[in-house]
């Protein structure tokens, strides 16, 4: 009896050891080149985590971190749109001894002093997506921007293809003066000539990416402008609630150049038949920007090989006119607040946004 249980125990432990070795081997085989040999801890700092886009982005960041077994601890902090909190988050993470920080610096240059002090203290710090000013090697380890100018150019080229003779454009972006909107406008102006008229107050109509304000702004713009040929928006899903306003004022929804979102794709499917002018073009909304930033931070902190790319370029995603690169996507069975262009599988995104 006793003997047999000892044997069983031996057999089990042997089996467990073999499996453990096997698992390590598999894991080792999958370790990406940016994950070096040094052990390190990493924190992801968000300036504002309160929307589904950020939720998916955070989940993507976490998933990327998990690919590297030498990251022994992963932490996350949400600045909740409060610049003071974002600054203290950055400083306290560094004070806690985290080795690498990836920062979404929503407040822009306002968080630069905090980032610089952390960098000077010898940490790896990688701000991404929002330009915080400063210089690489002086204020931070690496800045992983997103090429919003490219987004603007993609939209511009599409607008040219559907509206070769020019027309009236309405450009909606987030808070007043945000660098993303300004860069996108630059991109569009690189491509579009003076025959394309922006009917919004320069540089863009301010919506704060808030659906309620978007609705108010769009109401005023529709009433003011008898003819809007194309709406350009850098957050497509926030328009979904507002677009039916066109029908209320007896007009067809116009063509839309924007970023993707499941709710938007499904909205297009439901409304394109009754709105003859409603063409849709989207660029990937850029959740995967965080992956590149995390890879850089991990590479620098663990002595891995840094990725080749230094700027995230959002690829074109949907085009309702040509179906290239993709026709409009809609997953009705999943929540509207997910992004089918993201590398994170749709089901995982659904979990991340809490559905």
């Amino acid at each position: 009896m006793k003997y047999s249980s000892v044997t069983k125990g031996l057999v089990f432990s042997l089996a467990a050891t073999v499996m453990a070795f096997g698992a390590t081997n598999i894991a080792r085989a999958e370790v990406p080149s940016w994950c070096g040999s040094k052990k390190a801890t990493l924190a992801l700092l968000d300036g504002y985590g309160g929307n589904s886009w950020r939720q998916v982005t955070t989940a993507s960041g976490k998933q990327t971190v998990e690919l590297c077994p030498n990251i022994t601890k992963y932490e996350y902090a949400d600045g909740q749109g409060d610049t003071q909190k974002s600054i203290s988050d950055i400083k306290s993470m560094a004070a806690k001894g985290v080795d690498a920080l990836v920062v979404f610096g929503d407040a822009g240059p306002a968080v630069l002093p905090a980032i610089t002090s952390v960098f000077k203290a010898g940490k790896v710090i990688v701000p991404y997506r929002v330009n915080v000013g400063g210089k690489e090697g002086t204020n931070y380890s690496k800045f992983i921007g997103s090429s919003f100018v490219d987004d603007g150019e993609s939209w511009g080229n599409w607008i040219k293809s559907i509206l070769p003779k020019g027309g009236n454009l309405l450009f909606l972006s987030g808070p007043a003066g945000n660098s993303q909107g300004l860069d996108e406008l630059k991109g569009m102006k690189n491509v579009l000539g003076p025959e394309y008229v922006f009917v919004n107050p320069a540089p863009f109509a301010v919506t704060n990416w808030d659906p309620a304000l978007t609705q108010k702004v769009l109401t005023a713009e529709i009433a003011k402008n008898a003819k809007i040929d194309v709406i350009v928006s850098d957050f497509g899903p926030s328009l979904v609630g507002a677009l039916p306003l066109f029908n209320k004022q007896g007009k067809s929804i116009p063509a839309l150049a924007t970023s993707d979102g499941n709710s938007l794709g499904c909205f297009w499917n439901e409304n394109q038949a009754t709105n003859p002018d409603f063409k849709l073009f989207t660029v990937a909304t850029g959740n995967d920007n965080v992956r590149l930033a995390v890879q850089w931070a991990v590479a620098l902190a663990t002595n891995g090989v840094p990725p080749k790319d230094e700027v995230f370029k959002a690829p074109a995603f949907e085009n309702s006119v040509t179906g290239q690169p993709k026709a409009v996507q809609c997953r009705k069975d999943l929540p509207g607040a997910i992004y089918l262009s993201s590398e994170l599988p749709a089901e995982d995104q659904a979990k991340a946004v809490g559905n």
Partner: protein
Amino acid sequence: MPVARSFVTVVISTLLLLVVCAIFAPSSVSWGALSGSLPFAAIIAIVGLGQLLVVQQGGFDLSLPGAVSLAVVVATHYPQQSDALLSQAVLLAIAFALAAGFLNGVLVSFFRLNAIIATIGTNALLYGAVFAVSGGVPSITTNLLADIAGGEILEIPNSIFFALAAMAFVSFMLKKTVIGRRFEAIGANPLAGRAAGLRVRIHRMMAYVYAQLLYCMAGVLIAGITREPTAFQGDSLLLPSVAVVVLGGTSLLGGRGYPISTVVSAFFLNQLSQFALTVGVPFSAQTIIQALALGFGIGVYSIRWTVNVRKSTGSRNVEENK
């Protein structure tokens, strides 16, 4: 009963604004533009009525952003786009509103806390609940709620009917019922109310409860009007709620309240921002215009116009003052 001065002022201002709109930005008074922006006026009107009741008791309710946001997230996250769960979600939102209202009321009227401090605390608690329910993430509203709150009857947005119903109910209760008359009397002079044997503390407490119920109504409506409301939708409503109470002519020291003027002011304020948007002034100027309107509103009522009135009808005033 003579028409209140505040009512005349606010109606004249609104008509003036409409004329200015018709001249400089005619599209902002087109029916299409109005039906798009009126739902937001309705929301401001409803939260304004809530704030009015608290202001009448000499208080301030700074828990409004949390209360509205909580109602929004409960009405969207709890049902998760299932129409069948909507009624439960609304009941749950009302339960939260009652709890927050009684908390505010007890703190202010029984524990004698300063209203501003007590309601800021409650606001923090409510935001805690907002995060617990939503995780700070928006959720898409149910189709049923979108039809009820965002739909139209005879081309008039339904939210207008809700705002008008709230206004009629608050006016009737305040002006035509015993409980309402006592409520106003206590607001005007709590000591006299106490001397007259009125239950001052209960009435004061209930002001916060009524207000919360109105915020809850506004929150549920927002959840229906915007398809994917954020978890912080109440934040932008605090200042307008106080502004419309002031523009409506209710004294911040408490006392007589003007629900109808408050609702008209809500329309005024909303139309003003819509006008600024339509004219296409830069965003900075839009904010300044709204601030000026608020300053104008406060100025109209705080400058002692009565000085002039006394001069012309001096003799009668002397008799009254005796």
